[in-house]
């Protein structure tokens, strides 16, 4: 069965840890890191495998640091 699978890449050095993306994700895929980047901000990380590549997080990200990928994959 074909399934839509997504992935996000966060530019962690440019993320300001505002958490706006967390509120925008329909599948609670994003949380803040425990570590901080060189500016001292916690950054967005993916915390589950539910991402569909809907791009909601990337749309609302004020700093435009999220890149989104999406593909149809055949489930094993």
């Amino acid at each position, binding site marked *: 069965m074909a399934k839509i699978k997504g*992935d996000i890449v966060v530019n962690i050095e440019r993320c*300001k840890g*505002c*958490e706006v993306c967390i509120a925008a994700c329909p599948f609670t895929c994003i949380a803040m890191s425990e570590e901080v980047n060189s500016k001292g*901000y916690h950054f967005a990380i993916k*915390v589950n495998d539910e991402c569909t590549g809907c791009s909601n997080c990337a*749309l609302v990200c004020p700093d435009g640091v999220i*890149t989104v*990928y999406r593909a149809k994959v055949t489930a094993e």
Partner: protein
Amino acid sequence: MEEKFAHPELRKPEHLVYKTTDLMVDCPLSYCPGCGHGVVHRMLMEVLEEKEIASKTIGVNPVGCSVLAYDFMNIDMLGAAHGRAPAVATAIKRLWPDHYVFTYQGDGDLAAIGTAETIHACNRGENFTIIFINNGIYGMTGGQMAPTTLPGMRTSTSPYGRDIEIMGHPLKITELIAQLPGTYYVTRQSVQTPSAVRKTKKALRKAFDLQDQKKGISFVEVVSNCNSGWKMTPVQSNIWMEENMFPVYPLGDIKVDGELVTRS
């Protein structure tokens, strides 16, 4: 950092569905974490990219937090003195009528010091787009009260809340300029949720499309947050904005095709 749920097999150009447009300069934005300015910049640049008009567009940046917009938008821009962007844009558009011209202004810039320029450019029916970021405060200078500050809202110059008996009412400048025959499209949007962002982009697209028709000002207000000035976290500020700003500044079209929209 090791990513636990990474999918390298998906991270290929053929699977790319969203990335920040190259019309945004590849540099950190000067805005506070969570500030709506960055989203509006990006949607604006996406519209210019999709319309393929970046090289034919000239923007005028304001004084305010977005004074540095020329550093972030990879297009030709000119800086105007505080509040004077519509006057500068008038000159540019009249000299270069085949170019797309916009101003990008905060509420202090557009509705306080620049009220005269705003109203007269709108009344003359100039053929450019005004993008108005209403966060109800002077963000850049430390959160002073703006004409758009809500009744009761605390700012650094209204520490006990805006008392309308002394400080006057919030100025709904967007409703005001919609009354003028020189405005053709007037709308109010926001950027705190994915669907709101999509609507704002649509409105910006329409505003730039209308410049071809030369029927007057297209005016897009974006009600936005200033979490630093409001002294809230970004997520809190977006909720506060929905609960407090939207009742006073309701979202939606105010004037379409030169006709005021009647709300039921």
